[in-house]
């Protein structure tokens, strides 16, 4: 039973299980595959690096416990995001980290490419984007982040606890804000 759940869950993660897997194999593989994206999500959420790493591991640990208990988890990736999101809510230090990242990003982007003019334009676009994103609510930013990482509207809704139609609205508002920042 647990093996069947593991195989089904692995398939939902985007990988077909070549051989029968234990729950532990599944969680380990999922952990390797998705820990970085969940970690980055938590950092942008406002956690410091240590707390983000801890919460990421905790989310996968809980996934293991649930699957071992025989809980049916249709989409373990979205489930792990949701648990990590909830853990972050309990220990979030604030939004300062996002601001710091916006500053850090400028130097990161400016380093790309050999054409200085192109690099300058890129830098300016990224600055405008960062400004526009700062004008969005945290939930709107979370929707954009999770969508960019491949979660569907329903999965995003489950992760942050809002209606799927609200996800659509938040995404539209977010994109409209970015579009306006870049084209006006």
């Amino acid at each position, binding site marked *: 039973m647990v093996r069947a759940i593991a195989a089904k869950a692995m398939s939902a993660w985007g990988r077909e299980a070549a051989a029968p897997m234990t729950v532990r194999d599944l969680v380990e593989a999922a952990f390797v595959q998705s820990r970085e994206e969940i970690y*980055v999500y938590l950092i942008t959420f406002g956690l410091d690096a240590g707390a983000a790493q801890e919460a990421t591991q905790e989310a996968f640990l809980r996934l293991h416990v649930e699957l071992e208990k025989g809980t049916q988890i249709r989409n373990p990736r979205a489930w792990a995001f949701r648990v990590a999101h909830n853990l972050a*809510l309990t220990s979030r230090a604030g939004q300062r980290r996002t601001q710091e990242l916006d500053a850090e990003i400028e130097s990161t982007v400016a380093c790309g490419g050999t054409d200085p003019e192109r690099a300058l334009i890129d830098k300016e676009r990224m600055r405008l984007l960062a400004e526009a994103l700062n004008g969005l609510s945290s939930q709107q930013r979370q929707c954009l982040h999770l969508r*960019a990482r491949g979660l569907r509207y329903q999965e995003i809704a489950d992760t942050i606890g809002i209606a799927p139609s609200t996800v659509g609205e938040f995404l539209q508002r*977010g*994109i409209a804000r*970015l579009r306006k920042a870049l084209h006006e």
Partner: protein
Amino acid sequence: MNSSPWTHLDERQLLRLDDGELSERESAEVRAHLQACWQCRHAHEQVRAAVSDYVRYLDAVSASVPAPPRPWGTIEARIRNTRQSEPGVSSRYPRPAWYGAVAATLLIALFFFWPKRVLTAAELLQQAASREKAAEAPRAIRIRTRTAQFTRTVRNASENMALKRRFDAAGYSWQDPLSARSFSEWRDTLKDPKDRVVSTRDENGVPVHRIATASQTSTVKEATLTLREGDLRPLNTVLEFRDNERVEISEVDDIELSPAVPVESRAEEPSKPKVPAAGELQVWAALRSIGADLGDPVEVRESGDGAVTISGTGIELQRQQEIRNTVASLPGIRVQFDTAERVALPPRGDTVEVPVSRAETDKHADRLLDLSDGLLARAHALHRLAERFPVARESRLSERDLALLRSLRSDHLDAVRDHVRRLRAELRMPAATPASQPTGSWQQSAERLLTAARETDEALQQIFAAARAEGTRPTLEHLYATITRLEEAVQ
């Protein structure tokens, strides 16, 4: 789905198309429109460009994220540790004296943070409904649709008949729309309810259960009820209708507005005058002093216990603070701004949006439109006073409050007259013909004034701002007629 060749697609449709969130039929319609319409194709490309830029931005952010402080290692070790700590697993290490305290702390932490069994929607609703029976209490609720927002008390369902009809058609209680029992009764009528239950935190960090029930057959395609985890009190209900109308009902605050009264005895209770309106009037006067009654989406409502609540959505933080400071000296005032989301204001109705480019193109038109903007704001503020203080309520005011109300009214009327005079001058309108004397109360005049101000604004927009490139523009005579009606209303 609005995708005929004659109406352009909106951004949400374009985004949902790319995200695979449209039905096959909708996708086909949107694609067909895109093939035919260059303008929408251009908008589509811009949406895609914004998405692409955002992904690049996110990648750059990810690259700048600090590395985890420790190597990742494997999850294996933590799973093993978890198993060792399970009951029945003997420890290889002696237990120090503080072991008990640490274990107790861990147990408390586990109690709070370990995933709990999520109850089913039916179980949660049953529990929540039974608690409602035990603590019936009328409370203030805010009802927000895509275009409007108002506050009323539960069971006082006299406002907004269109919404009432909508709720009746869906089989959802309009009288008490923020209730587990109402949600449950609606859910019981569904042939195909599909439930989801999420335990999360709301925007204020309060632990909540969210029950979302979807149906393919009801006129409500999905309803979501948010219950506070601690006492299962309904905090919020959202109904998504098939025609894309969205109605959100929220509790105005956590404080009960009047003592619990059973439904039956409440219905038989003789109607008695509400608490004197002085508190609310003073709040309006305070808001007037900083111009917050002109265009800011501020609501002022008196509750059953005599307290006055100022609420609003989408108000900038700085403005919120100004309002708080202004009313700080007034006793018994509750200020409650919704800061969770900056919502878009409803489509133009009582405010004027002047495109930036217009300022560069035609100063004359700008002046006219600015005047119209100010005039509309005043007409709207006066109309709101008329709504809040109808004749019957006005008759119960004290002399002092009547004087305050008159002074607020005069202030708005003087401003309207001044705006009309300047409009006339700017338009070089022919000399005014003697206006007929209006009949009825000042409240009725306020209604006529708002109508005339809207007509004037509409005519100005169409003539001077070319807001609608297609269609017949009104004549100057039509504009003059609307301004004359304005003058009649402010007699």
